Structures are given as structure tokens and as C-alpha cells.
């Protein structure tokens, strides 16, 4: 059995209201893991709580038996597109270069080899032609690819992506899922907050299904079942409509 990522007894509240209730799971590394649930189920909140980005009432996270602080620099995070100021004065290649910062630490500056590595990562997502564009000049899919390139530049072990497929074009979606798959093949663990039920079976191997509390966790073929999904989404209509959808 592979080493695992474990979350124990995670509780988060927001102004006295519980938004994440007693979530526990233990998932093997080297998997593509989807975090699924209806709107407002706390998918992004769960991801943020696991990464210690928001205060939690209780909860312990371990990455292959190590505490979060020991692995922080090896965690790449791709935020929701709506959380980024796209007018920020930064060009594409410098955005990717940010991925080299964790390894550099304080005071050291990126060197020529870091810049070359950033360009290599940019090429992997097919965006090298846009290296000198300001990030706001790109389409949604291109922006998402640039942020994935930044995550690649970080040479991380764990990848956390918050809604990477929202509002992007089909070709960008293909580029992104292919890269996520190849990361998985290299033994990396990839968490993706996702809400489009269509491609769930095609994209992920493991699912975390939540609606404030954990509804189910495990392999896709066990969790992506009408009766379990219905407990999270509470709308049977949605289910029959989208079940078994393929890319």
C-alpha cells in the first residue's frame, strides 16, 4: 500500500456557523482526487482548511505521516481564477517564475536557470508564445494554463487546484487534464475542486464527496453512484441527466 494523506476530525465554522463538519479521510498518494459537492457545500473551504489557509476549530492533517509545515514548499496551489487580480502588473513568464520562489527561500533571487526552467514549464502548457503578455490579456483557459505552469515550476509533490475547469475552452481543458494525468503517473497527488458531474468518472480515480459533512470518500466507481451522489446533491434530476457522461 502507498503512503497516505490523512485528515482527521476537521471542523471549520464561519461566524459561529459550521461549514465543515467532522471530516475524516485517508487517501493514497499518487492519485487524481476530485473534491465534489453542490454549490456552497464547502469544497473550496475544505481545500483551504486542509492547507491551513483559514482558521479551523479542530483537525489534523498529515502528508505521508509528516505535518503540513514539513511539506509546505512542496505543495502547489492553483487558486480559483476569480481570486486573482488580472490587472496586476506582471507578465506571463514572471508569473510562472513565482513557482520557483518557495525553493529559493528568503533573500535569494531567481537565477538564469530558474528563468529557463520557468520557460520550460510554460512550454509544457503550450503558452511559450505568450511569455511577454500581461496576464490580463489572456483568455480564461490560457490564464489557467499559466497558473498550472507555475505549479509545475514549483516541482511540487502535492497539487491543489480550485475549480480549474470553470469557464475555460475545450483545448485548454484537454491540455490541463493531460498534464494532471502525467503528474499522477509520476507519483504526484492531485486534488481538484470540481463541480461538473459530466466528466467525473473520466477525470478522477478517487472522490471526496461533501455537503458540509463528508458524504463519501473512496474510488470513483464506489462513490459515483446515484444513491450516494443524491445524498450530496439532493436533486435526483441532476443525476440521471449527467450520469455516465464521457468526454
Amino acid at each position: 500500500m502507498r503512503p497516505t494523506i490523512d485528515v482527521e476530525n476537521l471542523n471549520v465554522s464561519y461566524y459561529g456557523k459550521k461549514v465543515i463538519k467532522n471530516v475524516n479521510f485517508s487517501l493514497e498518494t499518487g492519485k487524481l482526487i476530485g473534491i465534489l459537492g453542490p454549490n456552497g457545500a464547502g469544497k473550496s473551504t475544505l481545500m483551504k482548511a486542509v492547507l491551513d489557509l483559514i482558521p479551523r476549530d479542530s483537525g489534523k492533517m498529515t502528508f505521508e505521516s509528516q505535518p503540513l509545515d514539513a511539506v509546505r514548499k512542496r505543495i502547489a496551489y492553483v487558486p480559483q481564477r476569480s481570486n486573482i487580480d488580472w490587472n496586476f502588473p506582471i507578465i506571463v513568464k514572471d508569473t510562472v517564475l513565482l513557482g520557483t520562489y518557495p525553493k529559493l527561500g528568503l533573500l535569494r533571487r531567481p537565477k538564469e536557470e530558474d528563468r529557463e526552467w520557468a520557460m520550460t514549464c510554460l512550454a509544457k502548457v503550450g503558452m511559450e508564445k505568450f511569455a511577454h503578455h500581461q496576464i490580463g490579456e489572456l483568455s480564461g483557459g490560457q490564464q489557467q494554463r499559466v497558473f498550472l505552469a507555475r505549479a509545475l515550476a514549483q516541482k511540487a509533490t502535492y497539487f491543489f487546484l480550485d475549480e480549474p475547469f470553470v469557464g475555460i475552452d475545450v483545448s485548454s481543458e484537454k491540455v490541463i487534464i493531460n498534464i494532471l494525468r502525467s503528474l499522477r503517473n509520476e507519483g504526484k497527488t492531485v486534488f481538484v475542486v470540481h463541480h461538473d458531474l459530466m466528466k467525473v468518472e473520466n477525470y478522477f480515480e478517487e472522490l471526496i464527496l461533501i455537503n458540509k459533512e463528508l458524504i463519501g470518500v473512496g474510488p470513483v466507481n464506489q462513490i459515483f453512484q446515484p444513491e450516494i451522489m443524491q445524498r450530496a446533491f439532493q436533486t435526483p434530476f441532476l443525476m440521471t441527466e449527467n450520469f455516465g457522461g464521457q468526454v
Partner: protein
Amino acid sequence: MAFLQDIFVYEFLQKALITSVMVGIICGVIGSFIILRGMALMGDAISHAVLPGVAISYMLGINYFYGAVVTGVLTAVGIGFINQHSRIKSDASIGIMFSAAFALGIILITMARSATDLTQILFGNVLSVRTSDMWLTIIVGCIVIVVVVLFFKELLVSSFDETMAAVYGLKTRFIHYGIMVLLTLVTVASLQTVGVILVVSLLVTPASTAYLLTNRLSMMVVLSSFFGALSAVIGLYFSFIYNLPSGPVIALVATVLFILAFAFSPKQGVFWRMLKNNKRRTT
């Protein structure tokens, strides 16, 4: 030019020039981060909040610098505290704290009966800069520039994508308060030149001008400090020649530079855009 000759002749003018250039530079540097982090109102708040500190220092007979830094930082912490412990939005908590601090400052200064000083503190009088004030500004300037150069990488990533910075272990709250402290230092150093009320002009306007002209943060910081220094020098000139308070003149010069960039910036200039639209309409 008579002004240039006067600079060589009068020592007070030399001090004023050095101080205002330094103030222009550091306001430009910190201002860049302030506007990108959406903290323009915070800049305004801190500058008003130093007033009670200045008054208390005056009463105690110590350098106004110490009191000003203390009340400035206290206000920043107070705003942060209200934000984190209530549902009040940040612009409202800024409004609460800075109007209270400013009101307290005015009352304290009135009690200390230094009405002439009040005008100077509010509107600046760069021509009365003392040698000690000049050195204070130079020292603060060096601190600000060294910190920003050393930690530019961290300032960049935390201003652009605070979440990523926090994930990989940067202490983003520490950075936030660090910027507040630098902002307070810059404000205090600017008191003599532009005054409490108009510090925000030098913080926000040159940085905004630079923002319209470049797509790189490093370039923005350099341009911003250039525009800040330029505004300060031109402002000093008019202030000296026409015997006007330096703060308002400097603020207006900075605004003129902004309007020029707003209209004629190569990429984003309103003027070019209108020209393009006209062409499109005629063809």
C-alpha cells in the same frame, strides 16, 4: 534660472530639496504596493492617525517621530482587529479608526495650543525643514528602500497571490503589518513636506501614474518613485516662487502627471483609444 542659484545660496532650500526628493521616492515605492493591495484608504487612514502621536510628542517635548509611529501602528492594528473580529467591512473599520484618531489629534493639538504647528502638520511646509528632519527622512528612506529591495520577491508574490504565498509558508499577516509599519514611517517622514492630509496624494497618485505605464512591478516601483520625486521637486519650485504651501502644490503636480499618463499612456491612454475608435467609425 534664479531658482537654481537660490538652491546654491540658501541652505534651507537645499534641505527642502533633498527632503522632498526623498519623500517623493519613498512614497512612490510604498505607494506602489499600497495601490496594488487595495490599501489606498489605509494609506489615508495611517497618515491621519499619526496626528495624536504628533500632539502627544509635542506635549512630552520629544521628537514627533516617536509618538507618530506609535499611534500610526496602533491604528493599523486596531483596524485589523475590527476586521477580524466583526462583520464590519474593512473600508468602514478604516473610517471608524482614522476619523477617531484624527479627531483626537486635533483636540490634543488644540489643548497644547500650537495652532501654527497644526497648519504645518496638516498641509506641510517643506521650506521650514530642519536638519534633523532631513536626516530623519533620509534614514527612513534608506530603511524603506533596503527592505523593499531585499524582500521584493516576497512583496511581489504576497501582493499578487496571497494564497499561494501563504501555502508555501510565507507569513502573510506579518508582511501585511510590515507594510503598515513602513507606511507609517513614510507618512511621518512626509509630514513636513506634504502634510498629514495630502500624504495620500503622494502615496496613491504617482503609483497610479506608473501603473498605467508598465506591466512589470519592478518597473512600476521605479517609475512611481521617479514621478513622486519629480512632483516633489516641481512642487517645491512653485511653492518657493509663489509662496504657496508645499503639500497642495506637490499634490497638484502629481495629479497633472497622472492626467497626462491617463490620456497618453501608450497602451492604456484614453486619448489613443478615442482616436482608434474614431478611425474605426470613419472607415
